[in-house]
């Protein structure tokens, strides 16, 4: 991603020098619109944020405790929403 950021810097600089703050805002708008358009295998690029889903943020920026992670995030289109039983707890009697 550092290569992409390095290259994106130049159109941004052009926009900023031509139109100032307005240019930066328009440049960022184009960039974010493009990122919103990206989809890989049916999952949005900005997945837990831009089609916003509060429950799926548990694993994206800050990792929640492991007992919070029992459900899989929906952006990966899981077949089963619940995860397999956790290996890190005491085995419960069924």
């Amino acid at each position: 991603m550092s290569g992409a950021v390095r290259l994106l810097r130049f159109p941004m600089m052009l926009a900023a020098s031509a139109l100032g703050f307005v240019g930066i805002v328009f440049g960022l708008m184009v960039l974010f619109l493009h990122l919103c358009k990206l989809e890989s295998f049916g999952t949005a690029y900005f997945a837990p944020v831009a089609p916003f889903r509060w429950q799926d943020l548990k694993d994206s920026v800050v990792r929640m405790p492991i007992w919070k992670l029992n459900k899989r995030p929906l952006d990966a289109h899981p077949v089963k929403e619940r995860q397999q039983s956790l290996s890190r707890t005491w085995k419960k009697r069924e």
Partner: protein
Amino acid sequence: MSNPEKKITRFQLFIMTLQSQIGIGVISLPYYLFNAAGNDAWISVIVAGIFVQINIVLIWLLYRRFPNQSIFEVLEITVGKYAAYCLKTAYSMYFFTIATLIVLLFVRLVNIWILPRTPMWLVTLIMIAVCVYGVIDHLRVMARFFFLASMMLFVLLFLIVTVAKDINFLAVLPIGNSGIPAILGGAHHAVISFLGYEVLLVILSKSLGGHAGKIKAALLANGIVTLFYTLLTFVSLAYLGPAVMRFVPEPVLYIMKYRTFHIIERTDLLFFSIWIVCVGTSFMTFLYLTANALTSLLPQIRRPTFVYVIASLLFMLSFFFPTDENKVALFNKIATYLSYLFTIVLPGILLFIAMARGKSGDDPV
């Protein structure tokens, strides 16, 4: 349409309504309202907000009768093919008018406030090009972007709240001083800032979830917009006072200009830049609505084609944008009356006809 559009979630419906409504009004709303309603301008905002809530309920009632059809398909079912043809044309003209108004007000303000020597058509071209890029894809892309843009509202809110410690409550004090007719007149002027909830005419049928959930999302969005505008009007009124308010057409920017932080000298430019994103989202909505109306008119042409056509038409119009204050005010007035016709009167009539003729969403076109 060849491929059916993907639906948006209920939260995205909420965000789209919110972002479509907050936009062009943020900067100049307090000024126009003050001229109409004096120091009771903030009450006018609340009145206008309640009025819009009622309007949203009306749109929802129409939607509940036709859960799978947007307004354009409803037109075909209720009034027949030929009348629907005329009304669809009228709707597309209306949406186009509002889109033009948004761009006009935006470009005018950029011209006055930031880039006085840049030609207006250049700023228009950039704005239109950026927004076209967002609209040519499907609705979900817009909804995703609108969510990211709504993060910016927190910054706007923060900037407004920071000046709150300097306000003078005495400036608003004889509450109800200007009388009920003036307050209602102010509400009439405020309607133009609330425009954007027309998007519900189309996207209510394009979102997931139950009927009750959708009305809740829409009403909540409009409630937040009302609160935001009320806060804005109240703060600028109480900060500047009635003596100054009469002379500043952009009160919010003037407040920001004299509010400096340690590392930000011109807060007004920061505010303005963030506001551009909000205007962009409103403009995208109306571009989308216009293209949608035209697509329902001529189904054999794809929507992106229409977006390009509308955008180039708008760009050509930008060479004839009036800079005269009176002409802009006249345009504002026309747009307000048109919005009454197209968001209250026509859906109301359609609902009445549908009930009288016993038509509902299950009937064939």
